Every structure is written in structure tokens, then in C-alpha cells.
């Protein structure tokens, strides 16, 4: 049986509406165009209000709203939910460790501590393809746990890990390239740019 209108509105007010800033940030990461993002937020809350009786109070309203938001976005761009092949998350973690050693060789080992990379991070996230961008925004920007991101994106936990680790490596490559272009590299060896696709062996990690 549905809740009485007043009680229904009260629970929507107390649980759903406080999530608006989170949904707004998520929508902007998805849509990028500010006007599209606002429309996406508005449509998300209208759909959520219409479907509020199907939501069980206290079961993760923010994730529920993210799911609605993303479903609307996917439908509107006719992209459709697609599953990427699951890569090897451990290999991705190794590749990131390899990037660390590359960064050190270029004098960029402490680049994340000493340089404000905010604008470059935003650009790098925006440049990721949708599947990678979604998981980075959910886990690294919104602070979702892996299981929450898996629920929102409708993919297995292993897929979240592999996408997240791949996305982080892509971001690190972009940021290291940015730092080199901006003249932050101090090493003299200029044999190559940041390594790209290869999975390194974690050398130096004993």
C-alpha cells in the first residue's frame, strides 16, 4: 500500500532532496554541458518522485538516484548500456606501479604533491570514455564503495575494479603528459612519453 501523500512527501524531502548536490555533480560529469546536466538533474528528481513508493527508505537513496540519473542519460543519448570485456585488475595495478617508476625517472615522482593539477584532472576525466568516466566519478569523486558503484552501473564488482584501475592509469598518463608539457619534468632523459598501454612488471618493487 502506498504511503499517504503527506508522509510520502516528507520522506522524499528528508531522504531524496538532500542528495541533490551529489546528483548535480554526477549529472555534470555525465552530461558535461551545464544546461543538459540541469535538465538531467530535474528529470532525475521527477522520476524519483514518481517512483518514490518503490524505494525502500534507508536503503541508499544516493545510489538509487545515481542509477535513475544514469539510466536517463543513457537513454537520452541512445548509447545503451554496454558491457566492456573485463580486463585484469591486477595487471592494471602493476601498470600503475610502472607509471610511478616512469614518473620518478622524469623527476615527477612527487608531482601530485607539489603541483595543482585540478584543471588538468577535470580535462583528463572529461576525456575518458563513458564507462571509465562513470566509475571514476562514482568512486573517486563521489566516494562510493565498489559495491555501490557496481549497483549503480549494473556491472559485477570485478568489472568495477578493472574499469577503475584502468581509468586511474589513463588519468595518471594524462597528468604526467600534462606535467611534462608544462615543464615540470626535471630529468634529462627524453626517450619517450609516459608509457601507454603496456603492463609493466612492477620493477623496483622488489
Amino acid at each position: 500500500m502506498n504511503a499517504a501523500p503527506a508522509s510520502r512527501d516528507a520522506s522524499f524531502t528528508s531522504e531524496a532532496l538532500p542528495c541533490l548536490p551529489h546528483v548535480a555533480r554526477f549529472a555534470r560529469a555525465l552530461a558535461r554541458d551545464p544546461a543538459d546536466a540541469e535538465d538531467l538533474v530535474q528529470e532525475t528528481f521527477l522520476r524519483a518522485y514518481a517512483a518514490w513508493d518503490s524505494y525502500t527508505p534507508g536503503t541508499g537513496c544516493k545510489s538509487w538516484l545515481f542509477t535513475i540519473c544514469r539510466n536517463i542519460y543513457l537513454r537520452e543519448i541512445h548509447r545503451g548500456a554496454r558491457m566492456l570485456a573485463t580486463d585484469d585488475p591486477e595487471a592494471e595495478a602493476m601498470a600503475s606501479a610502472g607509471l610511478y617508476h616512469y614518473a620518478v625517472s622524469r623527476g615527477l615522482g612527487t608531482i601530485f604533491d607539489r603541483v595543482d593539477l585540478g584543471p588538468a584532472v577535470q580535462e583528463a576525466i572529461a576525456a575518458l570514455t563513458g564507462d571509465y568516466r562513470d566509475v571514476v566519478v562514482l568512486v573517486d569523486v563521489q566516494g562510493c564503495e565498489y559495491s555501490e558503484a557496481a549497483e549503480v552501473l549494473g556491472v559485477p564488482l570485478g568489472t568495477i575494479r578493472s574499469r577503475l584501475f584502468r581509468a586511474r592509469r589513463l588519468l595518471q598518463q594524462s597528468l604526467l603528459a600534462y606535467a611534462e608539457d608544462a615543464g615540470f619534468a626535471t630529468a634529462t632523459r627524453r626517450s619517450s612519453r609516459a608509457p601507454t598501454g603496456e603492463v609493466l612488471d612492477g620493477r623496483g618493487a622488489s
Partner: protein
Amino acid sequence: MIPCKDVIHRLWDYLDDEVTSELAEAIREHLEVCAGCRAVSEFEQAFLTTVQTLVDDPPSDAELQSKVMAALHRHGYHGPGV
């Protein structure tokens, strides 16, 4: 002590607090004594902090909230708002 390879394999999970307490303790102990893995861990953590502090609060959340509230009221919502 667990080997370096295992630490690096699970480093992102560890930094994201997505490992069991037993594994977290094993990785923590490893990082205390292994300078190589500790350096990688610090690099990855600094990267995560860079991304995580990218808190891009909407410049016009109040305006957006007003729009959402107006739309909700047009669709039967009678609550007080945010």
C-alpha cells in the same frame, strides 16, 4: 611477510579500504618495511587525493534546487523543499 607483487596487485583495493582487515594489516606491515612499495603507495595515494579533492561544487546549486523544486511542485509535491 607477503611479497611485493601481492602488495602491488592489491594496492588500489587497500587504498580504497576495500580489503579485509587481515589483508589490510598484512599490507600495512609490508609497507612499513619495504621502501619500494611504500614509495609506490605514496605516489598512488597522492594521485587519489588529487582526484578526490576535485570537489567541483555547483556554482548555482541554489538556483538548480529552485528549478527542481518548482518542477516537483508542478508534479504534485507539497513538501517544504531542501
